[in-house]
C-alpha cells in the first residue's frame, strides 16, 4: 500500500480547516491517547463528537453508540479502533455524508481507505490529528519535535 498517498500535506491541511470531528473509539479514561487527542482538538476550537457505546458523555459531550446515531452533519471521522473495525466504520462514514476519514497511528486498513476513497472522501492514514494540527497550526515546535517544516513566511497568529 502506498502510504504517502494517505499522508499528503495539502490534504491534511485542508481537513484541519473542518470543525466537526466524530472520534470513534474515544476513551473516557483521561490517560489514554484518544482522550489526549480529543481534549487537544476541543481546546483548539473543534467540535468533538464522541463515538463510544460504553460511555454516556466524554469531555462534556454526548457519546453516541455509532456514527449513524449522530444528529447533524459530521466533517471528519477520526478513528482509534483496531484495523479490522475500519471497513464498517468507513461504510458508516460514507453513509452519514462525512467528508474525510482519518485513521490514527497504527490504524492501517487498505480496505477501509478504499471504501472511503471510492465515495470521494479524503483519507489520512497512520497519522495523528493532534500531531498534524500541532505541526501546521500549533506549537509542536515548542517542545523540540521535528515538524519537518521549513519556511521563511511570517505567520501572523
Amino acid at each position: 500500500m502506498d502510504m504517502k498517498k494517505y499522508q499528503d500535506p495539502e490534504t491534511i491541511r485542508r481537513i484541519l480547516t473542518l470543525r466537526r470531528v466524530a472520534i470513534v473509539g474515544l476513551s473516557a479514561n483521561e490517560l489514554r491517547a484518544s482522550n489526549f487527542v480529543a481534549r487537544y482538538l476541543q481546546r483548539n476550537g473543534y467540535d468533538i463528537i464522541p463515538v463510544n457505546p460504553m460511555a454516556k458523555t466524554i469531555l462534556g459531550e454526548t457519546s453516541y453508540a455509532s456514527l449513524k446515531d449522530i444528529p447533524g452533519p459530521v466533517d471528519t471521522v477520526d478513528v482509534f479502533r483496531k484495523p479490522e473495525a475500519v471497513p464498517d466504520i468507513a461504510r458508516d462514514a460514507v453513509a452519514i455524508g462525512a467528508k474525510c476519514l482519518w485513521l490514527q497511528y497504527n490504524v492501517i486498513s487498505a480496505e477501509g481507505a478504499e471504501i472511503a476513497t471510492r465515495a470521494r472522501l479524503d483519507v489520512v492514514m497512520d497519522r495523528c490529528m493532534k500531531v498534524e494540527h500541532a505541526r501546521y497550526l500549533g506549537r509542536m515546535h515548542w517542545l523540540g519535535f521535528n515538524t519537518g517544516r521549513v519556511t521563511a513566511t511570517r505567520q501572523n497568529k
Partner: protein
Amino acid sequence: MSDDHEFGFSTRTVHAGCRPDPTTGARALPIFQTTSYVFEDCEAAAAYFNLQEYGNTYSRIMNPTVAAFEERVANLDGGAGAVAFASGLAAQSAALFTLLRPGDHVVASKALYGGTVTQFKHVLGKLNVGLDFVDPDDMDAWRGVMTENTKCLFAETIGNPGGNILDISAVAEIAHAHDCPLMIDNTFATAFLCRPLDWGADIVVYSATKFLGGHGTSLGGVVVESGKFDWSNGRFPVIADPSPAYHGLAFHETFGVYGYLMKLRAETLRDLGAAISPFNAFLLAQGIETLPLRMRQHVANAQSIAEFLDADERVSNVSYPGLPTSKYHALASKYLPGGCSAVFCFDLPGGRQAGMTFIEALSLFSHLANVGDAKSLVIHPASTTHRQLSDDELAGAGIGPGTIRVSVGIEDVEDLIWDLEQGLNAVGTM
C-alpha cells in the same frame, strides 16, 4: 506550498527550527532569556502541566530558543525530535537514565571519549547498572557479553581519539536481535557526514560544544531519537508502564513515536535539571547555520594534514580513517563518504617527552582540552583527557604515551602544516 518540497541539508541547517517570529517578525532566532511563562488561564496551565497541550511552563523543561536548536538538530538527523542539555555528558547520561533501571546492563565500545568511559564506569556502577566494554570492531565481542538484562548498546561513530569507525548497521542488528536500542555518540561526524538513524541506530547523542556549535564558545548537548523503537516490547517498563512520577501516565502508549522524548523531557530533564541556557542554544543554533561550510573545510584540511604526517618518517601510526592505508577505510567509505571529520591521533616515537616538546613548539595550534573548533587544537591525551584511565584502558582506547591528538580547524592548511613542521623540528633536535 513549501510543505510539499524536500529541502536539502544546507537549506535545513539555516532554516529548520527557526521560522520568522510570529509576534515581532524577527528573522534571527530570538533569545528568550526568561525562566517562566504567563499562562492564558487556569485551564491552559493545567493542560500544559498534564502534557495535554504543547505549552511553555518553566525553562528548566522547555524554552523557545532551546526548542529551535532542538528541532534543527532533530531535523538534520532525521529524528522524531530532540531534547537539549547543559553539556554532552549531561545529554548522554539523561538519555541512558530515561531507559535504565537498577539491575540493567549496558554494553559499550571501549574506544570512547575518556569522559564517557569515566561517566559509565562510575555513575552506572553507583546506580547498580552492569557494564561491559568491548572491542567495537569485533561483532562476536558485542554478542558475547549480551545478557537478558542488557538494555542498551553504546558507541561512537568515529572513536575518540583512535579513529575507529563503527559498523553501525551490524551493531544495530545485534542490538535489535536482543530487543534493545543502539545509542550512538555522533559528535565527531555530525549529521553532515553521517546520520546514524539512517543506518539503524535508535538514539543519537551529541556534545554540541564541538562541531555543531563550531566555535568553542558554548557548552551544550542534545539527544535525538528516531521514534521507531518499540519501547512497549516488554523490556522497558520504565517507559511503557504507568509512571508514578506523572500521575500514572504511560508515556509510550499515550505519545507513541514521541513517548521516549516526552519522558526524557518531562521527567528526566525536569527531575535531574541539567538544562541548557537559552543563550548557549542561540549560539549553537547559529553555529549549525555554517555546519556544511565548516565541515567541508575541516575535512579537506584534516585529509591534507593526515597525508603530510603519514609521509613524514618522524611520525608513526597516523590514525586518520580517511587514509587509504587505514584499516577502517572501507567502513569510512560506507558510513562517511563525505570525509572522516577532523580529529585524529599520531604517535611520536620519543614517547611522553617528545609529545610535550612537540606541543610546546607549536604556535598556531592551541593546546587545550576541546575538539571541533574552527581553530586548530592539539593535546596529549595520556596526560590530560584520558588521564584517569589505566595503562590497559589507554591501550584499549588506542592511546600510547607519545600519542598526540589534533583537531584540525578551518585555517589555511599551508599555515597548519608550517606549524606542525615547527613541532617536528623541535622533536628532532631533542
